[in-house]
């Protein structure tokens, strides 16, 4: 099976779950170190540049991908579903995982600060937010890996 984590957010938080799912990031619910947050930053940058990335293979042998486009979640979901249906790929062969309202207030504020040139403030806010979100992302990745969570709410 192929698992696609889709995000349309400026800070693609859901893709952290994808990276945890594929063991690119540790499934550790403790506070993150600065080096791990740096790794997440670099991953986000790469994901935005590439749009579509193969993240790895999980323990069950599922291929995990990340997809990042600045379009509506429902549109992306229908596009992927109808395109794969054109080539007779059955819905059981893949999972499309999305989550609306990924960015919390701190991330939105961080983005705003970044836009007006306050890069240091942006970094601080994003770091703080990632620290708070990470345990939740670990739990989501675990549920997705176990097949209990589709994450699709669009």
């Amino acid at each position: 099976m192929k698992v696609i984590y889709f995000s349309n957010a400026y800070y693609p938080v859901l893709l952290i779950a994808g990276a945890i799912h594929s063991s690119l990031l540790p499934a550790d619910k403790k506070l993150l170190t600065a080096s791990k947050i740096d790794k997440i930053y670099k991953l986000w940058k790469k994901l935005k540049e590439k749009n579509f990335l193969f993240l790895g293979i999980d323990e069950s042998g599922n291929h995990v991908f990340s997809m990042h486009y600045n379009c509506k979640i429902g549109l992306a979901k229908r596009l992927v579903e109808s395109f794969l249906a054109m080539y007779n790929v059955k819905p059981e062969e893949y999972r499309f995982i999305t989550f609306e309202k990924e960015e919390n207030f701190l991330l939105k504020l961080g983005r705003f600060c970044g836009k007006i040139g306050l890069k240091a403030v942006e970094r601080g806010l994003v770091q703080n937010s990632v620290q708070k979100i990470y345990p939740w992302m670990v739990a989501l990745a675990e549920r997705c890996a176990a097949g209990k969570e589709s994450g699709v709410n669009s």
Partner: protein
Amino acid sequence: MKVIYHCYGGTHSSVLAAASHLNLLPAGKKPDRKMLKCLPFFDKQLKKDLGRIFFLGRDDQGHDIFIVGRLDCPEVVEKGLHDLAKAFSIPVEDFITVNVMPCVSSSMKVGGFLSRAMGIVGLGRPIVAWGGINAYRRVTAIVQKVKEKLGALP
């Protein structure tokens, strides 16, 4: 080979292009309003259809013709589908995506907005049909290029 024509709403210019490709509209002269209104999907798609790829027909050379609406994110169709195809081992040479937005006129945008976004069909549809008739030569030029490209394929 599959040809996917895409535009903002997937209901005006992409339908015109697909219909022209399938010879549902005359090649040498401009169509009239009645012809446009009789086309399947013309000014009929809804928001919930955005991103869904619709089959319009098979051309005389055996190519399947599709349309899709993708709002203002052409990359998700042009790049996203290619990435997705690679991930699912679908041959990328088996389909082409064609952006029809360059031939869309202001009147088509205004008419389309009134009809689809605002729901004022009685006012928007004649405007978009008028715009479509005027943009038809540009649409057929795009279709002609696509047909030449398809004809040059082995």
